[in-house]
């Protein structure tokens, strides 16, 4: 009873019975939005449909003259050039050249970068001294150095590897260092309390702990390495898909430009997918 009195006084409607229903305010009725998933075949069919439509319209436009085939080329010409590129042209030499410089640069840059990042654990002083240089190199557009690299390393494979390495190195270094910095100091304390040497802490704690970070950049790095290799070929080279694109453009062979770009993107996709697969495999191996 006492509680009711208080409530009554508070609401200022002493003894008045509370309204039985709340006055009806028209509230919009809204249902949870549902995003219905299409079946997989429908997705794939639509994707193929879009591709066919774009190619078909392109060809049609070129035939009727709506699209200037001199600048844009046309699918039928591209298909012919593709066959010639693989049967009579340097397709395989170019692919092998670009592939090699990418892979070597990728491995060199990733390995050296990871080791550099890990090495920062050893001494805080050393890390503090080297850091500004790494950041400088990171913010520097490395491709701007490409002409210099070509001069120093020559026209061959070495200069392309060097550019690909430069692009991947910094990413690996910084990511690995981020991993090293995320290490729980108590983990080190545990190791030292067990009488560990610095080398033991490094091998048994720092390296395994940082591995997920090191692995996580592989996919980014393969793309960067390919970019480096192509830019190197743009500047000066005798082989490679980058050189093929540049050469075709300079001779107004637009169909060949498309063919080289097409082959290049196939190469990129294959490398990306394989590295992603390796990355997943490694991640599964090191995390539980």
């Amino acid at each position, binding site marked *: 009873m006492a509680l009711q009195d208080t409530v009554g006084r508070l609401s200022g409607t002493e003894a008045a019975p509370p309204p039985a229903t709340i006055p009806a305010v028209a509230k919009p009725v809204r249902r949870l939005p549902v995003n219905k998933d299409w079946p997989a075949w429908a997705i794939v069919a639509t994707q193929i449909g879009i591709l066919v439509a774009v190619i078909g319209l392109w060809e049609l436009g070129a035939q009727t003259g709506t699209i200037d085939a001199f600048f844009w080329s046309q699918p039928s010409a591209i298909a012919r050039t593709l066959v010639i590129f693989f049967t009579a042209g340097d397709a395989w030499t170019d692919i092998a050249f670009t592939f090699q410089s990418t892979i070597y640069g990728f491995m060199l840059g990733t390995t050296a970068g990871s080791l550099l990042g890990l090495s920062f654990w050893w001494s805080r002083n050393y890390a503090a001294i080297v850091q500004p240089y790494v950041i400088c190199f990171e913010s520097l557009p490395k491709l701007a150095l490409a002409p210099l690299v070509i001069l120093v390393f020559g026209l061959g494979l070495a200069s392309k590897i060097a550019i690909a390495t430069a692009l991947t190195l910094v990413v690996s270094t910084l990511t690995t260092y981020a991993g090293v910095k995320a290490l729980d100091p108590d983990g080190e304390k545990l190791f030292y309390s*067990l009488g560990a040497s610095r080398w*033991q802490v490094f091998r048994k704690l720092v390296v*395994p702990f940082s*591995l997920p970070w090191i692995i996580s950049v592989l996919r980014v790095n393969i793309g960067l390495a390919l970019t480096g290799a192509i830019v190197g070929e743009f500047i000066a080279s005798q082989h490679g898909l980058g050189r093929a694109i540049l050469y075709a453009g300079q001779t107004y062979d637009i169909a060949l430009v498309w063919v080289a770009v097409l082959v290049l993107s196939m190469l990129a996709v294959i490398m990306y997918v394989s590295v992603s697969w390796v990355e997943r495999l490694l991640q599964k191996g090191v995390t*539980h």
Partner: protein
Amino acid sequence: MASCPKLRIDEVSMAFKTPAGLYSALAPITLDIPEGRFVSLIGPSGCGKSTIFNIVAGLLEPTSGRVLIDGIEATGTIGRVGYMLQKDLLLPWRTVLDNTVLGMEIQGVPMHEARGRALPLLRRYGLTGFEYLYPSALSGGMRQRAALLRTLLFDTDIILLDEPFGALDAQTKLHMQEWLLRLWSDFRKTVVFVTHDVEEAVFLADEVVVMGTRPGHILEAIEVPVARPRLRTVALSPEFITIKQRCLELLNVNAAALGEAA
């Protein structure tokens, strides 16, 4: 020296440099712990319990004083005592078994031999079926068990336990306390046990050392003359309650004194 204590903390003090000047974390402390004794250390946060542990484990150089193990100077030497930190710190990329052999491995014991020594202990002390799992698959209690066995398998006479059961739920905590006592009576190690839980401190220990803060110092060392093995119901006995009350009083007086000062 017949009465040489296992662990002697001799006039150990610690001061840290801060921007505001020298901060004294630990006033000179002297503590003797005989072999095979279970000593609990309780006190408010910031009373320097962890600092003492870090000094005894050799991870921190004291500003003054010495640490003696078996009467021999051991200040600033690592690997002399087993030290379990608050977190279990199990390495996620190692199986439970390989986590527990870490101490032996670091000491240079061949891996297969270390595993051979660890395996029966894991099985005897409640980790059967978990040996080859990764820590992420374990519950909090199981992780603490693994961490404690890692500390024990390091095979030092003295082990320091820093709030090992602090993060566990009440039920698991009780189980773990009994499990720890079983382990202790089997291995007869000298144990120093830090906790915030007064009842836990008294239940486990032969002696409870109550610490005060600002700077950290020992208020009183209280004997716990309760016979072992102890049953849970011992907590209801008058002598247990008297000791517990004395501990709480000491902690409260210290807190009140601080309140006035502030």
